[in-house]
């Protein structure tokens, strides 16, 4: 048998050298979430940077190597992951593609495009299929706050796109604390391992979650639904707000909605909408985005985004049987409405959309 004890285990120091220092870190929060849930008291997230809490804390590092393995930007597990998710090309395994929008007026009011993610999460809460979800709320200055919510009422606060980094895996570090609360309130959950969670994140974050699920490591072992959001690029919050302020004169606290459709459109709370040329945002783009080749997010049950959809709708890519069943249920319950493809476009529609995704992915990769 191979003497595994001699194998070099890469630790957080290697993560710092290979990922953080070389600007590859996407600030997903996976490394910190894992290390903290284990109670190792070694690393933390400072802004967008995972680092040792202190020189003393650095000595706590157990050198288990898990942080390096689950990091979405490292090589280990990528082959296995590609096999598991049936990845053959840049779009990943596609079971089906549809376009749809929510039928819920309240969600429509706060949703980004089709209001799909909020609607599906609402359904999962209602039908008792999830106990909690990881979403991104935002504070009064439009800064994303990744949050673990345990009810659908809180969903309204997390609707809409946040155009800056939201370390969505980070809240999982408090899973045990939240689990105790959930177990008390949802009496059908008798053990933390029986919890069912939905995760919403960008492709890189979904890749980290998928690596964690491949190894079945805490705290991601309770995630049963992974929703990947289409992502062309993401922004540094501070830099983005500076640019928005200077180009539109709208204060962060006055932003009602931000949308990118070729260019960026900022809608203020008093109803004003101002356009910013997408090129003007380049300085705020996070460096790791420039090396990313995932547009739709291949490591997920569902990939959702507006790109390619008619106005007011979202595109939904279903990758697993679980995803197809979920969408079927949500449609049959009348919670979302499928876009009616005009009869003459019917046979062309899906290949056209898939080609569009390929184009967008190529555009992103070229950057």
């Amino acid at each position, binding site marked *: *048998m*191979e003497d*595994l*004890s001699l*194998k070099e*285990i890469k630790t957080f120091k290697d993560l710092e050298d290979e990922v953080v220092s070389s600007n590859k870190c996407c600030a997903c929060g996976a490394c910190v979430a*894992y290390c903290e849930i*284990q109670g190792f008291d070694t690393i933390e997230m400072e802004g967008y940077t995972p680092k040792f809490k202190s020189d003393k804390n650095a000595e706590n590092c*157990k050198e*288990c*190597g*898990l942080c*390096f*393995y689950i990091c979405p930007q490292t090589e*280990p597990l990528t082959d296995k992951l590609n096999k598991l998710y049936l990845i053959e090309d840049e779009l990943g395994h596609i079971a089906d593609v549809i376009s749809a929008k929510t039928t819920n007026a309240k969600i429509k009011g706060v949703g980004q495009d089709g209001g799909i993610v909020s609607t599906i999460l609402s359904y999962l809460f209602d039908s*008792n299929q999830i106990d909690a979800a990881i979403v991104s709320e935002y504070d009064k200055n439009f800064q994303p706050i990744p949050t673990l919510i345990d009810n659908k009422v809180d969903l309204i606060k997390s609707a809409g796109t946040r155009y800056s980094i939201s370390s969505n895996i980070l809240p999982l570090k408090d899973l045990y604390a939240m689990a105790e609360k959930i177990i008390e309130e*949802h*009496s*059908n*959950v*008798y*053990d933390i*391992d029986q919890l069912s969670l939905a995760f919403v994140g960008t492709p890189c974050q979904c890749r980290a979650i998928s690596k964690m699920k491949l*190894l*079945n*490591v*805490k705290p991601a*072992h309770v995630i049963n639904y992974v929703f990947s959001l289409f992502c062309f690029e993401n922004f540094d919050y501070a830099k983005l707000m500076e640019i928005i302020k200077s180009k539109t004169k709208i204060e962060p606290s006055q932003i009602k909605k931000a949308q990118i459709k070729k260019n960026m459109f900022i809608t203020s709370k008093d109803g004003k909408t101002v356009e910013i040329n997408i090129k003007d945002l380049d300085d705020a783009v996070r460096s790791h985005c420039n090396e990313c080749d995932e547009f739709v997010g291949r490591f997920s049950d569902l990939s959702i985004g507006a790109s390619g959809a008619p106005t007011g709708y979202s595109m939904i890519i279903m990758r697993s049987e679980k995803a197809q069943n979920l969408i079927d249920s949500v449609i049959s319950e009348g919670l979302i409405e499928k876009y009616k493809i005009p009869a003459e476009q019917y046979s062309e529609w899906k290949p056209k959309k898939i080609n569009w995704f390929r184009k967008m992915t190529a555009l992103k990769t070229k950057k």
Partner: protein
Amino acid sequence: MVENSKSILVIGGGVAGIQAALDLGDMGINVHLVEKRPCIGGKMAQLDKTFPTLDCSICILAPKLSECYRHPNITLHTLSEVQKVEGSSGQFSVEIFKRARYVKEDVCTGCGDCATVCPVRGVKNYFDVDLMTQAAAYIPFPSAVPPAYLVDKESCVYLNYGICGLCIQACGAEAIDFTQTDTSLTLDNISSIIVAAGYSLIEDTVPLKKFGYKKYKNVISALEFERLICASGPLEGHLKRLSDGKEPKKIAFLQCVGSRDERNKDYCSSICCMYTTKEAMIAYEHDNNLETYVFYIDMRAGGKGFQKFLHRGEDEYNIKYIKSKIAQISVDNKGNPKLVYENYDTNKIEQLKVDLVVLATCIIPPEGIDELAISLGIELDENKFIKTNPFYPMETTREGIYVCGCVHEPMDIPRSVAEASSAAAKAAELVRGGEF
């Protein structure tokens, strides 16, 4: 121990195998007890209480487990299975396949620090019928014998990727040993073999979809019910529905699920009538407001005190026995099961809405029985239980190989123990008896 003594092999570490091993060990005979699971105890260790005395199952079993472990004449081989049997009665040679535990059995103190620090979760544990999951380093239940943890080969990150090793760091006794490998061991000088391989349940092989099992959360199997009502189980004995956590007020027990059934097994599973009454009684002890309905074809209560047990159920524990055939099981939108049945006493089609349905499922031969029978060179009957002659009920079709317990045919604990002692006596003849 007598010089040049031959040993006896007991296959299976459930209550039957344990009893046989103890009887033989006490006779001064060397015994090898082979068990495929990481620990001995079998199904009896998973039960809450036994009928008809309502004794705590593990409480009466645990002393036997310890005795087996400590006994100077008994060698315990867990995580082991019989691969090959050569030779003949009085002179068998047996090859055992032993899976690696990755933990030094005699060093592990059972502290559980490895399980606490292990990053992997979701490992299935047979003991709680998959109602609970574990870390990759785990022990099937706290009082398991041998009192040692083990590492699950498939999910361990160290064994698969060469990273982690947190358990090695955490173990104060330095008991984690990843240099262990699966091995083969040959036992010579085996004079006789006792097969006590126990049983499986029909839900392990046949999807009971028409009963709503694994489809509706409020339809569970009897073994799952045992774990849920047991104080050492996932709910710590506070019975709740798995769908919404509510305490059931009305429970329906359905008898003969998969047994006495032309489409599945046509034999009687023997113990279900008694254990269903037992389970209903235990549930009533937990909640005096409980109403229980037992849907049966015939109530089989042949043992000593058994018939009285059933009457007690009716008189003191609010159990209603309904002679019937179930036509349909469905659930409403809140997950409450609804039964439609033909009541044989009133000759009417009736309906009943309950909170929970428990299926008394059919006992079937254990997993791997075909391979075991081939290795041992013994015949199975038409239901794949071990074939015996009714006048020599402990003997298999091969001389020197004996059988006891549920692998022989479905039977309760007292009968399994009686058969075990009987098989031990027969097997001992070859060591102690006259010429052969």
